[in-house]
């Protein structure tokens, strides 16, 4: 929204600089996005009289014009009559006109502030000197006007500054609308001025007409009637019929310049009245051609405010034909729709130059319905922007009263009868009891009751003080956003300046807050992964259905967005791995040959169902991918090495893959993957290399593998594993290596398990690890394990050690048909 400073000044006295004003508005009312000084744009531009107009010899459209500038410009050549010569190409120039002259060295306002500002000069045109130019409304950056130069009415002294005459020595404040969503009153200059007055600590005098809720509309009734079919859709609908005037009349030029500077195109006096009052009071109005309405529904004009009907169509003023929905509010003449309420009029009742009689509508509509209509049809007019802020029903009458006055004044039209008025949504004026203590308590201030009361009474609230402690606050009719005590407290705080409130800290006892165990765990997990040389990534929660498919998952198991930005972001991911798979190849391409990427985040898998709160279950996951561009060897072990590093002491069992419907498993190749089982018997996740199809789909290097786990399950497991510290033994430890030759189908886990059966039965502390796997012949392999033994009671002698080792050997040999070598 654009606010003109000069317009504001018509309603409130502003005696501070524009910068100070902007700062004050910023901190106490609304954010100003920018302040634009337009006086520069109209610098040196003069209003002049065209004294003599002759056509230029040899040209079919140019005229040589002699203008009188009252001697105001000191830099141009003049003729003996003190007139200045300008060549003009407009067809509508005639002598005697009052026009606008852009002298040499001035810039065409239309080009002001653009990349290529056009500066005028004295030029020789076909052998004739031309000083500057005579301007059209478009060149003056006011509005599009194609008929030619701007011709001004009235008696204006030649040489008068154009900016001064039309108050264009102005500043425009660009207001960020969003924080006024709840303030319909601030969408009009009067309401905005009232607020500016209040934050400057001054009383505001509202124009009489806006305070007059029952203006006199004349006598008689009967030419139209109004029916609001559903009381929920309109609190009030008023209409006035006026006739016998000049509908071709233009509104006063100064008014046109005010409309133009805030972005509204002047059209005709009647339309300008509706727009002017909308800009002034925030109440949109609409004018229908009465005769067109009559031709639709006959002489008995019955206006209906109703919902749209199935299959009903309406051509709007902008020429667009829309399909009405049964949720749209429609204005109808008899059975025929003539306007989309609050949003735009219909083409079938548009006023034009032949209009003789008009209906002016002043109404309020259900803002929620209008908002839906606005979204449905994509209409963002000035009117609907205001209607969707919820302007009060009381406002329709004063504004209609003023509209009737202005239409009469500017076009000569007269009311035919009195107003037609249907008012089902009449509400009682609200009074709110506000104890001063509440103001102090909520804001954390110690305010005097007079300061509190004055601040809001400046903004038009009625305040009666009771027992010097309580304010009885009467809410003015235009503040439809004020309902409860807190709303009034906000106004007091805001108008006095929130920044004047002293900041303090809440009191609290010394009880320590214990950070959440799971959070601490995740942070530790992250740090350990980083220590392993991996890089943490964050990737989008939404992915393309194709990525899901490429990873071997089913998109139907994902929650799907109905309004995604692109197909790339349409589905919630079920697991993290597909995201990691899709960023691996791009990194290889960027020249990273060997790396591990990991993510800790939440995933959503539709078959998991809903929580007790009836929202989808969220699963915390952690996934890692290892990739080596030219890697040889089995990638599985590279990933496993990282997993061992982060979970080494958790005694994870690597179990052969069996059928599972866990979506984590989908991308993994079962023959080269393992299910990770915790000591508590629960599945934590999966580790492995990827299916051939997955490698192909994501263009992965052959040497890639990864793992994905359920972080919460992992946390639960970690909680059960106590960090049992055993004191160091005072006696030395002994190590022995044993090499077993076994059939190649025997796996390392079996050897360790058989050995542990013996080791765990001894009273010694022992550890065992595979240190070498060697395979030469096709049927067997040699697995070397290192066993470490230590006693807490004495130094082990050779015989004791040999006995334990022999037992281990016997066990492994017997169980696995191994040979010791």
């Amino acid at each position, binding site marked *: 929204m654009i606010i003109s400073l000069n317009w504001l000044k018509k309603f409130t006295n502003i005696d501070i600089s524009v910068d100070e004003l902007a700062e004050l508005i910023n901190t106490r009312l609304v954010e100003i996005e920018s302040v634009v000084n337009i006086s520069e744009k109209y610098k040196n531009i003069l209003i002049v009289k065209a004294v003599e107009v002759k056509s230029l010899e040899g040209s079919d459209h140019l005229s040589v014009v002699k203008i009188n500038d009252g001697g105001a410009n000191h830099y141009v050549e003049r003729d003996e009559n003190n007139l200045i010569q300008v060549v003009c190409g407009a067809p509508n120039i005639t002598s005697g006109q009052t026009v606008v002259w852009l002298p040499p060295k001035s810039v065409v306002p239309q080009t002001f502030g653009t990349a290529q500002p056009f500066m005028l000069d004295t030029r020789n045109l076909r052998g004739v000197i031309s000083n500057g130019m005579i301007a059209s409304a478009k060149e003056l950056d006011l509005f599009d006007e194609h008929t030619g130069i701007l011709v001004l009415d009235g008696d204006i002294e030649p040489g008068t500054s154009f900016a001064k005459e039309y108050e264009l020595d102005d500043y425009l404040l660009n207001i960020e609308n969003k924080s006024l969503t709840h*303030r319909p009153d601030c969408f009009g200059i009067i309401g905005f001025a009232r607020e500016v007055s209040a934050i400057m600590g001054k009383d505001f005098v509202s124009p009489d007409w806006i305070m007059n809720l029952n203006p006199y509309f004349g006598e008689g009734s009967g030419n139209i009637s109004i029916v609001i079919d559903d009381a929920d859709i309109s609190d009030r609908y008023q209409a006035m019929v006026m006739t016998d005037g000049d509908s071709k009349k233009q509104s006063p030029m100064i008014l046109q310049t005010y409309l133009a500077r805030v972005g509204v195109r002047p059209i005709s006096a009647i339309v300008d009245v509706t727009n002017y009052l909308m800009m002034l009071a925030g109440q949109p109005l609409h004018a229908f051609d009465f005769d067109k309405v009559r031709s639709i529904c006959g002489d008995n004009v019955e206006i209906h405010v109703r919902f749209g009907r199935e299959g009903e169509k309406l051509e709007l003023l902008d020429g667009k034909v829309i399909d009405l929905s049964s949720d749209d509010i429609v204005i109808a003449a008899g059975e025929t729709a003539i306007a989309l309420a609050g949003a735009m009029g219909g083409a079938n009742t548009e006023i034009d130059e032949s209009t003789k009689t008009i209906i002016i509508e002043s109404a309020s509509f259900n803002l929620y319905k209008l908002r839906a209509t606005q979204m449905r049809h994509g209409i963002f007019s000035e009117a609907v922007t205001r209607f969707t802020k919820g302007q009060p029903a009381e406002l329709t009458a004063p504004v209609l009263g003023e509209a009737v006055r202005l239409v009469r004044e500017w076009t000569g039209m007269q009311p035919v009868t009195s107003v037609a008025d249907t008012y089902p949504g009449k509400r009682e004026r609200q009074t709110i009891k506000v104890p001063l203590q509440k103001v102090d308590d909520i804001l954390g201030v110690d305010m005097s009751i007079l300061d509190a009361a004055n601040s809001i009474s400046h903004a038009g609230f009625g305040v009666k003080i009771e027992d010097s402690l309580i304010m009885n606050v009467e809410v003015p009719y235009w503040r439809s956003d004020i309902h409860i005590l807190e709303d009034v407290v906000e106004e007091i705080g*805001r108008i006095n300046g929130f920044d004047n409130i002293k900041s303090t800290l*809440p009191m609290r006892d010394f009880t320590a807050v214990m950070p*959440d165990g799971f959070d601490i765990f995740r942070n530790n997990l992250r740090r350990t992964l980083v220590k392993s040389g991996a*890089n943490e*990534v964050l990737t989008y929660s939404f992915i393309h259905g194709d990525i899901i498919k490429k990873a071997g998952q089913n998109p139907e198991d994902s*929650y*799907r967005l109905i309004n995604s930005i692109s197909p790339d972001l349409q589905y919630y991911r079920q697991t993290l791995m597909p995201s990691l798979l899709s960023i691996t190849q791009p990194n290889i391409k960027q020249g990273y040959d060997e790396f591990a990427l990991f993510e800790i985040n939440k995933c959503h898998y539709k078959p998991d169902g809903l929580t007790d709160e009836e*929202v989808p279950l969220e699963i915390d996951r952690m996934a890692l991918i290892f990739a080596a561009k030219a890697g040889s060897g089995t990638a599985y072990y590279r990933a496993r090495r990282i997993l061992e590093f982060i979970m080494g002491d958790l005694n994870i069992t690597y179990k052969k893959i069996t059928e599972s419907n866990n979506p984590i498993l989908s991308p993994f190749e079962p023959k080269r993957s393992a299910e990770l089982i915790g000591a508590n018997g629960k599945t934590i996740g999966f580790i492995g290399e990827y299916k051939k199809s997955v490698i192909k789909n994501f263009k992965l290097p052959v040497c890639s593998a990864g793992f994905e786990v359920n972080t919460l399950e992992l946390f639960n497991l970690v909680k059960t594993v106590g960090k049992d510290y055993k004191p160091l033994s005072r006696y030395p430890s002994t190590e022995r290596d044993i090499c077993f030759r076994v059939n190649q189908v025997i796996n390392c886990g079996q050897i360790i398990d058989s050995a542990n059966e013996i080791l765990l039965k001894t009273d010694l502390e022992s550890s065992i690890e595979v240190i070498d796997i060697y395979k030469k012949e096709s049927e067997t392999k040699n697995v070397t394990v290192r066993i470490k033994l230590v006693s807490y009671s004495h130094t082990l002698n050779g015989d004791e050690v040999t006995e334990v080792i022999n037992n281990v050997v016997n066990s492994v040999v017997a169980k696995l048909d191994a040979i010791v070598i």
Partner: protein
Amino acid sequence: MQNIEDVKNNLLSQIAASDFPREILKSSELKKLYGAISSMPVEQRGIYGKSINDLKIVLESAVLTKETEAEDLSVEQIDITAPFDVNGGKIGLLSAENGSSHPLTTELENVINIFTRMGFEAIESRQIDDDNHMFGTLNFPDNHPARDGYDTFRTEEGFIPPAHTSTMQNRILKAGKAKLEADGQIAAVSYGRVFRNEDIDATHEHTFYQCEGVFVSSDATLGQMLGTLRSFFEVYYGQKLKIKTQPAYFPFVEPGLEFAIEKPVALGGKPGEWLEMLGCGMIHPNVLRSAGIDPEKYRGFAWGGGIDRLVMLKYGIEDIRHFESGKLAFLRKFV
């Protein structure tokens, strides 16, 4: 036409039995079907052509499945219990020098850490939620124009990827109600990922991180809110800071404000330069009420701000899109 069905069944069973399924796509039976098009009456060609194309799609997918199966069959089993490869020897880790955590998670941890020390519990925000938590319990009636500002996504089922971490506010209030009524305070922050249907550019993302705070007690004031926020930012930036506010409208607070700090020296700030940090305000009585808390007895304040911006300012990151790009070139700047 019935011919097509026969050919389909025949070829599908051939594919199932073949070691070289792709060869079957070149079968003469298929070629004959194609050949027949030209001898058809023009008006039938369209339908016929479409059924042949459909057939081709079915066959190709069958070939692909068969090929994948064959490939999968050729995969060698490995010893998943072994620590390394046969003849491989012990494996080292990647160089720890290259490891990095994501700047957003690092910063989030830092922010939460400060709030925890100030006495706030931390709760991670949900990434999918319902209308009631996202809007309803926060005093946004259906179709309220203030909903427009949030540009929410929706799933088929009507769930919402939350557009603010305030989606946790009702849960925090409900969970803290007993404690509030016993000893007088709720103090919590919720943090996490939020989503908005926004076109992305260097400063806008559809996915970003927020941290939200909630404090309720029998005597909370707006002055306390300003003090709490100032205190957080002074600890975060390690210097005294000036603060400034601006009236703002959020249906879940009353009064509602935008909160700005004077740009800290660490960020190259000069006096008079301000940084808008977050939105805040006194919790609206309806919001307390919807969690069963009596607004006559208790008051609270709440705030919420973005984490991405803090990180961008701290490191001078030029493009918000780097965060979720997964590019090592970016990630390894934070080793």
